[in-house]
């Protein structure tokens, strides 16, 4: 089968465009590559030409080369629960997802604005708590959140940069506008896949890459290092930065090692660190060396068994006290999770207005707080059309996708909802946008989201690129890698394509 006619707009009948033998089925969702009328969007034109020129066999070959290269490089994640320590590569799609310059400008401005406001929010709730006194957000919703860390009250955080690394998940609704689905201010991951995907895409489509004028993402590691150093620059001229990992059995270990290698920072585990006199040292071949900044890839709960979970063996006893004494920086700061709590999320547009006096550039998805009786009854009456999420859960767990659930599943979930309404929020089901993916030698639409990475230290930097996560099962809206998701490279164009 040839892909020559892949993107030729054939006879369009009820939203289906005959692109290949089976056709590229445009559905209700916004498609990244094809407009409603089946025409290729201008910023995808170069790629379309190249794909059509390569043909299915060559594309298949390039896909296999890419997968072999990922396996060889060890770009794998550990599958929990599967055969002990099994390593898999994250399925990666060949075709880049392309974002035009004008759309990116909005995303960039929107994300900077959002992270600035969220950092101000964190500084406030761990400080004066003005926003709570003014009643702009319910007191119990913030202070009662499981991710609120009372021990962070009145601690000095340089630049008020609590979340130094933020990965927000954006989606496009049916109208094509980007909205923020959730923020991730704890230990967001995926940036190494962004960089690895870029390497792969550049090798797969070198000509298109060069001609399209794609903005580079390669500076992420050095910008991250600069961000981390800026957290200690007030008291150390050459701060020693380390990356703290739970170890090789963590599913994101590859990323931890990758970032450490590209930043030139030691990759340490809890057992490598020693606390003495409220200062942090690492155990080296030449004795103990002082550590100034810890980029931790370990959750709050596990960084210090004395301050947080007592059964944790991943962290370092006494680390939090060293932090409290101002002798070490922990990045992201403990307690940032409260700002990406799914209930607090509903108030983020208000938070932006409260601190910055600006309208949010990127809107939220409409969210019902089940803690409010009126909204709860609305949610219960409309379960079939809604996605219900547990406030504290992540990774696509603890949620109900109404339209895809059976009547019995919905009934069971409704029980849980009534029992503990404050633990849930609900959102309308959004048809995430689709992007073309190579599936069994054909180009097929798959739903995607977008996770850009924002750094915040002395200043806020949005990396011009992102991880595009793909729901590989046809029609599926779940993009999490733990649930059959994959990824693809994301090209942010420097200029609008010439038409």
């Amino acid at each position, binding site marked *: 089968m040839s892909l020559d006619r892949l993107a030729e707009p054939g006879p369009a009948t009820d939203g289906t465009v005959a692109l290949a033998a089976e056709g590229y089925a445009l559905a209700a969702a916004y498609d990244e590559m094809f407009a409603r009328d089946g025409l290729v969007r201008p910023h995808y034109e170069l790629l379309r030409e190249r794909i059509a020129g390569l043909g299915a066999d060559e594309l298949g070959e390039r896909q296999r080369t890419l997968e072999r290269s990922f396996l060889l490089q060890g770009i794998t994640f550990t599958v929990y629960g599967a055969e002990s320590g099994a390593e898999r590569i994250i399925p990666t799609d060949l075709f880049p997802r392309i974002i035009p310059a004008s759309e990116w400008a909005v995303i960039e401005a929107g994300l900077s604005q959002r992270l600035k406001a969220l950092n101000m929010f964190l500084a406030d709730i761990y400080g004066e708590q003005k926003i709570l006194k003014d009643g702009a957000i319910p007191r119990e919703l913030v202070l009662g959140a499981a991710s609120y860390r009372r021990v962070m009250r009145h601690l000095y955080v340089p630049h008020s940069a609590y979340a130094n690394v933020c990965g927000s998940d954006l989606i496009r609704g049916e109208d094509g506008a980007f909205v923020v689905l959730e923020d991730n201010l704890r230990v967001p991951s995926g940036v190494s896949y962004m960089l690895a995907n870029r390497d792969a895409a550049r090798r797969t489509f070198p000509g298109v890459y060069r001609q399209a004028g794609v903005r580079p993402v390669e500076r992420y590691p050095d910008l991250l290092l600069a961000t981390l150093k800026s957290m200690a620059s007030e008291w150390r001229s050459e701060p020693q930065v380390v990356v703290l990992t739970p170890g090789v059995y963590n599913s994101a270990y590859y990323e931890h*090692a990758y970032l450490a*290698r590209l930043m030139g920072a030691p990759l*340490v585990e809890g057992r490598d660190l020693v606390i003495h006199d409220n200062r942090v040292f690492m155990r*080296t*071949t030449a004795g103990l060396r002082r550590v100034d900044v810890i980029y931790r890839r370990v959750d709050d709960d596990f960084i210090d068994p004395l301050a947080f979970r007592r059964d944790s063996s991943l962290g370092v006893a006494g680390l939090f006290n060293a932090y409290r004494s101002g002798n070490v920086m922990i990045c992201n700061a403990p307690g940032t999770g409260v700002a990406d709590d799914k209930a607090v999320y509903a108030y983020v547009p208000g938070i932006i207005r409260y601190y910055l006096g600006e309208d949010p550039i990127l809107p939220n998805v409409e969210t019902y707080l089940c803690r409010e009786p009126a909204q709860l009854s609305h949610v219960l009456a409309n379960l079939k059309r809604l996605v219900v999420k547990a406030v504290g859960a992540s990774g696509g767990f603890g949620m109900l996708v109404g339209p895809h659930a059976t009547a019995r599943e919905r009934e069971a979930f409704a029980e849980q909802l009534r029992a503990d309404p404050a633990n849930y929020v609900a959102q309308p089901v959004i048809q995430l946008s689709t992007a073309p993916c190579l599936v069994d030698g054909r180009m097929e639409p798959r739903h995607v989201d977008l996770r850009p990475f924002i750094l915040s230290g002395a200043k806020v930097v949005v990396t011009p690129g992102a991880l595009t996560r793909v729901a590989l099962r046809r029609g599926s809206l779940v993009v999490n890698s733990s649930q059959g998701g994959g990824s693809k490279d994301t090209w942010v164009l420097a200029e609008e394509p010439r038409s």
Partner: protein
Amino acid sequence: MMLARVADSLYWMGRYIERAEHVSRLSAVMLNATLERTAGAAQLGRIGLAALGERDAGRTDETYQAAHNLALDRDVDGSVLVSLARARENARQVRDQISTETWERLNLLYLRVTSARAEPAFDDDPPGFLNEIIADLHHFKGAADTTLSHGEGWRFLLLGVHLERAHLIARLLELCFSDGRTSAVTDPIALMGVLRMACALEPYLRVYTADIDPRFILRFLMFNEEFPRSVRFCTVRMEEFLTQLTREAGAARSLALRLAGRLDARLKYADVSEIEANGASTLLAAVAAECAAIHEATYETFVTYPLELSLPA
């Protein structure tokens, strides 16, 4: 200055790499010997099995099975697969410290021996399979040599390689030349096989010509200063690495360095004619014991040193 845990991992990576290479070569030579129906070949087979730690070393019909297990059995401690898996596990622990080129060589090897195609490939041509592993390990060492900084981490890696090698060669020699052993090797075919097991046949011929004499073999594999698989070559390197590592750790001397220097001196000033007359067993046993002591001391000096002594006052 590097993390103690990283030094530990690099050191063990070196040891496992060397072990995998040695076992591959021993097995390949042994399997080739089974093709011959001579007494010398049978003797070589027994030496191989004994060196590989097989207890029931009398039965040559089991050679193939033993070689197979030593190549690909996940449950046999010291099998090529287990050594490679451990080397890679250590490399993964320190992935941020080694170059991509080096890591990919090792990862490729690991993926090859653990893939479903490994068994049929071994059955199809066992020596070919093993020789390919050896070639890939050389590739790995070459990549390491040309892409890693020759700094502290590199020295820990090579300390592991040379310590393991000295130990393995000494053990092989002990099996062949230890006195009190009823079957001291004299058969020329078997002797050439022993040289092959140490990858030493061609370099030996260049020094001693085709005069295959057990005394010369012992001299070559024990004392030669230029051949990289002689014990002496290894002890020279060990002392050299430990001298620099000790200095880098900010100390003037360390127990590990002293032990390595003493072992090297013992070989350097050994009375070769006395050893040839009375047997090498004492010296060979001492090499094994000293290697173990150097290993312990290295740990105490660089990895498991007491914290109290290095805390700031």
